[in-house]
């Protein structure tokens, strides 16, 4: 328990100390929110779909969370390069605890970023339809954060350096993000693609978040919750296995 706590605390301290990173990672969601929100807003309205900002809000929050989550997960590569990973690996702590501690730390950071972006959407004009459901929205934010921190961590255990990072970004993270329904509805895609998106964890995250914030869930909140929880557990198990296989 203490081991998990100290690993968690380390991530939080690092996050609070790097203001530049904190602000920098808010730039992208803000850009999407403003550029797409105001750019596509009128077209969306003309198509009879209502307010695009209302649709986009949850998507941009999800975006902030997954990118922060993946980055904090990937941080292991820096730990490896700068030597700190060895210090953790030789310690007599179970690899499962290490994985959980790191994932919870990264997920907390990602959730905090999500909350900040949520506040930004409010400033821009986004309004949740039912404020009482905010705690539920928080649950989904945490779940998205957990899934993708664990995902980033698991990937990072298999990488030696940052060289492969662009490949992962372009062939894994970007498709996950663009085919998640965060920016536009997926229903109009060809049927095979719609089916394929069912294996994308972020689809359930965005759907759950949208369900909690604007009552716009397609798949059902319970389904979203169960799927995300199961994926989290699966990735934690996979991650700790991969951790036990790291050689430096």
């Amino acid at each position, binding site marked *: 328990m*203490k*081991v998990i*706590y*100290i690993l968690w605390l*380390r991530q939080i*301290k*690092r996050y609070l*100390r*790097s203001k530049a990173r904190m602000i920098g990672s808010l730039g992208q969601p803000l850009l999407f929110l403003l550029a797409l929100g105001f750019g596509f807003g009128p077209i969306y309205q003309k198509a009879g779909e209502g307010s695009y900002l209302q649709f986009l809000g949850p998507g941009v929050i999800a975006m902030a969370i997954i990118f922060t989550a993946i980055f904090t997960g990937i941080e292991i590569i820096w730990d*490896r*390069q*700068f*030597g*700190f990973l*060895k*210090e*953790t*690996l*030789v*310690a*007599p*702590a*179970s690899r499962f605890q290490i994985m959980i501690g790191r994932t919870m730390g990264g997920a907390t950071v990602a959730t905090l970023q999500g909350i900040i972006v949520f506040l930004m959407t409010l400033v821009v004009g986004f309004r949740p339809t039912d404020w009482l459901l905010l705690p539920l929205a928080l649950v989904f934010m945490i779940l998205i954060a957990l899934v993708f921190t664990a995902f980033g961590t698991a990937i990072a255990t298999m990488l*030696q*350096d*940052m060289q492969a990072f662009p490949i992962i970004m372009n062939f894994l993270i970007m498709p996950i993000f663009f085919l998640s329904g965060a920016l536009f509805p997926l229903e109009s895609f060809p049927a095979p693609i719609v089916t394929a998106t069912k294996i994308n964890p972020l689809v359930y995250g965005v759907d759950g978040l949208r369900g909690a914030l604007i009552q716009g869930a397609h798949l059902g909140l319970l389904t979203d919750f169960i799927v995300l929880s199961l994926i989290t557990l699966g990735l934690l198990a996979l991650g700790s296995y991969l951790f*036990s296989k790291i*050689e*430096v």
Partner: protein
Amino acid sequence: MIKVDSLTKKFGDFTAVDNISFSVAKGDIFAFLGPNGAGKTTTIKMLTTLLLPTSGKILVNGHNPSTDQDAVRHSFGIVFQDPSLDDELTTWENMEFHGVLYGVAKKIRRQRIEEMLKFVELWDRKDELVKKFSGGMKRRLEIARGLIHHPQILFLDEPTLGLDPQTRNHIWNYIKDLNQKEGMTVFFTTHYMEEADRAAKKVAIIDHGKIIALGSPNELKQRTNKESLEDAFLVLTGRIIRDESASGLDQLRSYRKAWGR
């Protein structure tokens, strides 16, 4: 305490450690010497569960590092050759992180951290971020950290690199003291031969992955008919200067420089 039997490690075609065998008795101070790239660090990594051997047997405190990692990890402390601190944390936080990770009880932990930081003269800088420290200060902190949980075996991979003679002596006295009082076994590598001569009870010299000499410092001097261990070392390993391939970290540093960060 440590038993190694025909240990081999290959990276592709390259044999880093080639069929070596040795043993270290409990309470010994054992020096593992050799030129750059001889296989010292690779051996330490295999002893400390960081690398799996290609073949051969290892027992550390009676346990196998390949299969019984946890028991082995409970037995030792280590000071790595290259930096392993978290630069974004303070001195105190680095120590605390280590203490908690090793399950040192809070009261003892606080006490030891204070004791160790005072010992390496970093106590008044305990709340500073490590990234502001010089190389020597980081080194002192790493040594202090490795000693928080008094381990049964202490691995030191070139621990005194970059330290002035005062600090070096200071630290060695402490380690020898722990060795005598608590029977802590010490396994270390160094390029300072007089350090090995003074501290070690037994010395192994490894070159090109093979152990070429094993014995007490005096035995090695007698065998080669030399006055100092340094001369004995040069006779045994020759005078050719070795190349070591650049580590990932060096490459990363050069990227960083290239990107002006």
